[in-house]
């Protein structure tokens, strides 16, 4: 269970909501409305008011890195720091194939990859340390429909098998309808529930 209690960031009303194990919550809204800042606050990357619990563990009771191992954020632009993909994380072949890669992708130079490839690989990198909560900031923004569908299926699969939770930010209402049980729009500094 992921629970936000009066989570407060600048320009947005305090947010309280609960996500049950296995569930995905959708989030949309204009650029600058606060979606990304909300995700950063949940991951404790920015200062904020209010409390967040993941499986009864309070954000303030564990160190920053322990929290972010449980509650991990996938930013809209994926960045890499070593030369080769495989130096960044370990992954099962099954997951690689699910996103349309062969095992030799781990030997690829990061500089050779397209932004779409990097984005898909960043999803695998995120899942590699088995977080309980995925905070996904437009994970398929750079992807064609086929690859977006693969990412959606992979995440769905991850949430189902691990009983994990996710918040999925997307500009595409149709995508949110596919991946999320319930969705909100961030507008005028408030979260408004979208009709299912």
């Amino acid at each position, binding site marked *: 269970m992921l629970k936000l209690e009066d989570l407060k960031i600048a320009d947005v009303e305090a947010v309280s909501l609960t996500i049950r194990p296995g569930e995905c919550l959708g989030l949309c809204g204009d650029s600058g409305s606060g979606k990304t800042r909300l995700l950063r606050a949940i991951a404790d*990357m920015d200062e904020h008011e209010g409390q967040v619990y993941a499986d009864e563990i309070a954000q303030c009771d564990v160190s920053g890195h322990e929290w972010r191992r449980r509650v991990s954020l996938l930013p809209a632009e994926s960045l890499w*720091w070593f030369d080769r993909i495989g130096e960044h994380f370990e992954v099962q072949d099954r997951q690689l194939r699910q996103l349309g890669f062969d095992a030799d992708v781990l030997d690829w130079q990061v500089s050779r990859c397209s932004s779409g490839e990097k984005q898909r690989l960043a999803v695998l990198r995120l899942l590699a340390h088995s977080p309980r909560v995925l905070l996904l900031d437009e994970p398929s923004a750079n992807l064609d429909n086929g690859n977006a569908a693969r990412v959606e299926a992979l995440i769905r699969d991850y949430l189902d098998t691990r009983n994990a939770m996710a918040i999925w930010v997307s500009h595409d209402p149709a995508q949110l309808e596919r991946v999320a049980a319930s969705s909100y729009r961030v507008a005028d500094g408030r979260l408004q529930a979208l009709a299912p």
Partner: protein
Amino acid sequence: MSDSLILLTLPDLMLASMLVLALIGLSIRLGLGIGRQLAIAALRTTAQLLLVGLILESVFASSRLPLIALIMLVMLTVAAWEILARQKRKLRGWWGFGISAFSLFISSFLITALALVLVIGAEPWYLPQYAIPLLGMLLGNTMNGIALGMDRLVQTAWQQRSVIEQRLMLGQRDRDAIRDIARDAMRAGMIPIINAMAAAGIVSLPGMMTGQILAGSPPVEAVKYQILIMFLVTAGTGFGVVSVLQLIARRMFDQRERLRLDLLLR
């Protein structure tokens, strides 16, 4: 000083200064635009060194500890300021100064004291003829290393702040997220002294040894002092750079292991 010491006279220095004057003349004639800077720098070096020579003569004559300590304190303060002046991105508040001065102190000062007491063994141990030049050599080199290492660390962290944040978002510890950058900065700070040790005697004759030989010391004696100095300088630079990098890297993050360059930089 041995009997073969040839004292320099004023005309000797005048002759050398003619060469600089000739260079200034050439610069003016060819419009190279460095004449003015050269003239100011030449005047500064003359005035500063003469002044320091006079001060050292009186300090050497008196050998009073408070006076020596005062001079060392001035040296430390100036070195710490110089480190900050070399930084492209300025540090906020007194932290930069404090971190620089502290790191210079635990490296240069302690190693100088160690060398004076255990290696040189002059009587008293703070005999200024040994203590001040030794500290000067250590401070000068440590200052360079620290300035380079600090600049590299802060610059790279600034340029790669999104990468650092991305590593944090994946649950890395703050020290792991900055580790590769800190390692690079360490190398940047240590390269000058490693080069100096590797090239010593083959590519270049170190300045201190050259000076001693010119002043009449037997080369092997000068070499022994140079080796001592090289080791001390290497240790001083290394410990100084490590200290600064640790302290600055720690200041970059808050208790929640968030990257907070806004707290560190102006």
